[in-house]
């Protein structure tokens, strides 16, 4: 096992069967995937922090918290780590459940190694995309956070009414003078590092409404 650094995506393997855990870890590491293995869902949950990129390779049937429950627990905590399920069972309902819960894949044991590797690669890609998107959103959010309360009010009004963005109109609605609106608008564009209201609307579309 290598200690995953901040940038290298890691395979997080959770399986209660020691033999399975060891062999998968060894095979993946030989294929140059950093792997961190856990014997139970609980152990993983305790260790994991959202900053670490990668994907989760999760055995479906385990004593204690099973795979499906771990999936739900992660969703509840807002952890977006992609999950690849492994299962000794061919249960259609459980695979449906897992996929409904946002799983990347549901692979039956035993499996061809390229199937797992493909799934892991896809999961890494999804995780990376998610993280880029998250970073963008985070940056935008940081810009929005620079606005004062009044500026935020005006920006929200503009975003809510993109067809009525004249200073006069905004001043009447918010009971302030159009000049003041003009002043605020200039400050908003400056702080958000955009040049027009159209750009402001595009920027706001990149973050999820909170």
């Amino acid at each position: 096992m290598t200690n995953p650094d901040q940038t290298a995506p890691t395979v997080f393997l959770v399986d209660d069967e020691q033999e399975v855990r060891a062999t998968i870890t060894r095979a993946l590491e030989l294929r140059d995937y950093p792997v961190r293995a856990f014997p139970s869902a609980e152990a993983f949950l305790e260790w994991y922090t959202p900053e670490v990129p990668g994907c989760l390779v999760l055995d479906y049937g385990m004593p204690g918290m099973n795979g499906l429950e771990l999936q739900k627990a992660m969703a509840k905590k807002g952890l977006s780590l992609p999950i690849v399920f492994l299962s000794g069972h061919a249960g259609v309902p459980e695979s449906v459940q897992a996929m409904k819960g946002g799983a990347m894949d549901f692979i039956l044991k035993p499996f061809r190694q390229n199937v797992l590797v493909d799934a892991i690669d896809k999961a890494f890609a999804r995780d990376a995309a998610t993280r880029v998107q998250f970073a963008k959103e985070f940056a935008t959010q940081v810009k929005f956070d620079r606005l004062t309360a009044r500026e935020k009010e005006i920006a929200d009004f503009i975003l809510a009414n993109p067809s009525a963005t004249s200073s006069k109109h905004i001043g009447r609605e918010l009971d302030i003078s159009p000049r003041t609106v003009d002043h605020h608008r200039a400050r908003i564009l400056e702080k958000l590092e955009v040049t027009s209201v159209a750009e402001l609307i595009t920027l706001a579309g990149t973050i999820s409404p909170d």
Partner: protein
Amino acid sequence: MRLSLGFILALSLAGLQFLAILLFVSTSYLTSERAMLQHAQNLMSQAVKSASEQTRLFLKPAGDIAVEAARMMSSGVIAPDDVPSLEIFLTQKVLTEDYVAGVYYGDEAGNFVYVMRSEGPGDLRTKIVTRSGTARTTELIWRDDAFSIVEAGFDPQDEYDPRTRPWYDAAVADRSLIWTDPYVFFSSGKPGITAAAPVLTEADGLIGVIGVDIETDDVSAFLADLKVSEDSTVLIMDDAGRVISHPDSDQILVENGGSGFRLAEISELEDPVARQAFGQTDLAETLAARVDQRSDVVHEGQSFLALLTPFQGIDVPWTIGVHAPENDFVREIRENRRRNIWIAAAISLATALVGLLIADRILRPVRAFAVRTSLISQGEVPSDTPLPTTYKELQRANETLINEIAQRRESESRVSQLRRQLFQFSRVDTLGQLATGLAHELSQPMTAIVQNVDAAQSIVSKRLPEDQNLREILSDLDEQAHRGGDIIAALRGLVQKDEGDVTTFDFQQLLEQTVGLVQHEATEQQVRITLPVQDNALVHANRLQIAQVLLNLMQNAIEAMDQSANKHIAIETTARDAVLEVRVTDSGPGVDANVKLFTHFETSKPKGHGIGLSLSKTIIEANGGHIWYEDAPDGGSRFCFTVPRAQELS
């Protein structure tokens, strides 16, 4: 044996009737018998009083005659030596009363005048004994009722001397009226007694003695008429036990050793009751005590009442006895009682019959009800068969019964339906579950092989020069492992068809029905099963598979507690978010920590094959839950599993 209601009813009706009548009859019998016997005693007392009085009246005139005559001679009205006048005087006295047999006068000189009734040749006979010095003459004169002489003569052989007679001595000794002991008159051969009174001078000097003979035959005659009851007997005895009078006067006289007759003693009577009642009594003592003496005598099986009382009024040592058969007084009552008992028996019999009829009438609806109930219980007629007209109580009982039957049928049919389904299921499914289990178990080592092959290939590919043979071997190995994987996949396919059978159902209900399946076994092993109380337990799973798991766990628990003193299975459920957690806890010895549970072919049971728990695991996981083991707090084992709740999946 349990008696029929009708029989008891009739029996108690008749029995009570019989007892009541018997009680009534016997009390009335006892009181009336007592009253009658009391009455009999009174009658007997009266009879002896009457006998006493009549006898007194009978004797008194004789005494009066004697006393009167003696006084007249004492006073000189009749001169003792004037024989003709004396004869006339004495004749008058004889004729005073019929039963006076004779009157006589004897003096100190041995002179004697005696007038007596005669049977011939005249009605009366006078005997005159005259003494002068040593010479004596005895003259006999017979007269008719007109006092004319019919015949006269002398009797030179006569040696009669009044002074030697007992009556004379007694009167002289007593100086007043005396009564002799009864005896048989020599001349008439009849029983009688003599009253004798002394003739005294004014200076109390003795001149002579007047005697009056009376025959006591007549006493017997009137005693014969004196009846206490039909068969009663009144008799008079003297203090020596001689019988003076008896209704049957012939019994009184017995031959006296060839020289005439004497009075019979009691023991010589032909009256056995009298012999028994009075023969043993000391009559002198009874006389001295002057009290009535009652006795009961049984002769030849018949009871007799007897009464002995001293004679009063005249100074004679006599007692009067009376005896009468008890039956004379109570025969009618006894017959009445016998009749009454027969009547009572007849009434009881009749009542019993009526009782039987009534009981039969009363019981008819009950019987019909019982027959119907038994037919229903045997399932020969449906339980909703209309109830025949019957009693309100039975109707209510019937309603309860019908409800009970309906409920039981319903729950039985649910349980047996589950049993059928499970039987079907386990036949089809055990193999499938086994296959699934095998597939699962095999998939793990197979995965490890595949991973190791992959690892080996990676290593080989990085090594130069490449070993072509090794590459091919590893490639083959990989292929073979995947062939194994395909077989596993095929095995999995065996159970795929069951998995569409997922429904939403009430877990509580399934649990109760499943417990119904093991209830018989549990009861036999004295295992107590407690269930949770939970209202909303809708789950979404394969109902039969979950039932199979519950059944496995409960049967395992029952087997595990085989040697336990306290056998208890507690089933609890807790709703946790999306799942229902079920805990099956037993009071057995728990599971050895070295045993790997839920694994195929590993078992802690001597006869188990390790498939039950593994199957359960397969089933539970296939249904989206999981199953695990905990040690129960008090040392038993606890198996827990989860089932998805309905609202999360629907």
